[in-house]
């Protein structure tokens, strides 16, 4: 029933309004006396050099890919867990096959050094 989700919609609106009002109110009550050195990015007191939007380590990309892989696999666990009682032994065997395939990939990533940060 769509009406069951009405409170969620109201909640999203209220929560975003709360955060936005807090920010707006703070912008109105605070002083506004900018100067160039106050607005420069903080680099421990040194004059900033270069752009902050530089390239980043490939490790972060790899972590993101791993996360997507595992997250999709986790999604398969949830419906299975809910219906486990009805599926009985059939569900258990099916899931065992799934987990074994998952484990083979997991061990492969581990052996390839995918989980090592350095």
């Amino acid at each position, binding site marked *: 029933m769509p009406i069951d989700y009405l409170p969620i919609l109201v909640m999203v609106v209220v929560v975003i309004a709360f955060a936005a009002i807090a920010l707006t109110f703070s912008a109105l009550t605070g002083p506004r006396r900018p100067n160039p050195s106050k607005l420069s990015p903080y680099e*421990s007191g040194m004059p900033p050099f270069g752009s902050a939007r530089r390239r980043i380590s490939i490790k972060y990309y790899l972590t993101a890919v791993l996360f997507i892989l595992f997250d999709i696999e986790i999604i398969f666990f949830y419906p299975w867990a809910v219906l486990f009682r009805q599926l009985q032994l059939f569900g258990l065997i099916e899931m065992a096959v799934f987990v074994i395939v998952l484990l083979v990939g997991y061990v492969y990533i581990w052996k390839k050094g995918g989980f090592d940060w350095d």
Partner: protein
Amino acid sequence: MDLLNNLFVNLYDWLAGALHALAAGLNLVKDAENAIVAAVMSLVVIVVLLLWLVLMVLVLIWLERKNAARIQDRVGPNRVGPFGLLQPVADTIKMFIKEDIVPTNADRLVHTLAPIVVAAPAVLAFAVIPWGKGMFPVDLNIGVLWVVAVGSIGTIGIFMAGYGSNNKYSLLGGMRAVAQMVSYEVPQVLTIVAIVLMTGSLSLNKIVDAQSGWGGMQWYIFAFPVGPIAFIVYYLSALAEVNRTPFDIPEGESEIVAGHHTEYSGMKWGLFYVGEYFNFFLVCTIAVTLFFGGWQGPLLPPYVWFLIKVYALILLGMWIRMTWPRFRVDQLMGFAWKTLVPIALVNIILAALATPILKAIGLI
């Protein structure tokens, strides 16, 4: 006693009844009347919930500072109000009268939106928590999924803050935070599967009801061996998820100033701070709901029991924060992928095998 137990449920029913009586005067179609009353009631509930959460955060900030002081042999805040209780209120006022700084060349829109994206989803996740008997803002039958899904939006906000600030420390902190939060989300979500499996439902209300028997012995924490393992994996990854010491690499003060919120001031910074405590409170309420029987307990009203359990877990988290040193980054990622993920995976299989046995002896 009965009056006290059902205090908030009765208040809700009384207000809804009064609204129905008011709406009946408008001579609307029955469906329209119901929809209007439902909308107004959800508005009331959500405003009350929001105010309650803000109060809880103020208490948490005070508690954290007092606890840190006690552990480090200091006195802590003691000037504003009795026992320094009004210190968080004074801090809030201070944040409001601070200048709002946006650094040069920052991505202005992203920089401004980031605190909202961090703080708002944390509140949304509280919508499905059963705070007491019959006290849940929204009764979703997919409560667990909702909490997991909404709770992970905050990660995007932290990356927005890191990217939008045009600061190297911010970018580094944002990248580290995202890497850590997505890594620890995998064991956290995997370990909940074991609980869902034992209950056979995604509704948080059903999970609490399933733990009602045997005077507390049916709490999932006692469902040996699945429950304790699941709880430890959940609690550790939850601490990492909310970036608290010993998992505070994303904002390690001694390395990268303040991580993603280096360039924030005033209420924008305040929202990050509040969001952090919302998230900490959230993971503790979820842990209580999933493992410690939610609001169930003898004598005292259900909502009081719920708060007692939540604060016990919060104090545990504060104790861990104050007494353990910070992880190194390679140890941190290794701990998530090489230790917690396999334990959680094995625990699911264990849960599948153990559920019929636990069911037979009546432990779940």
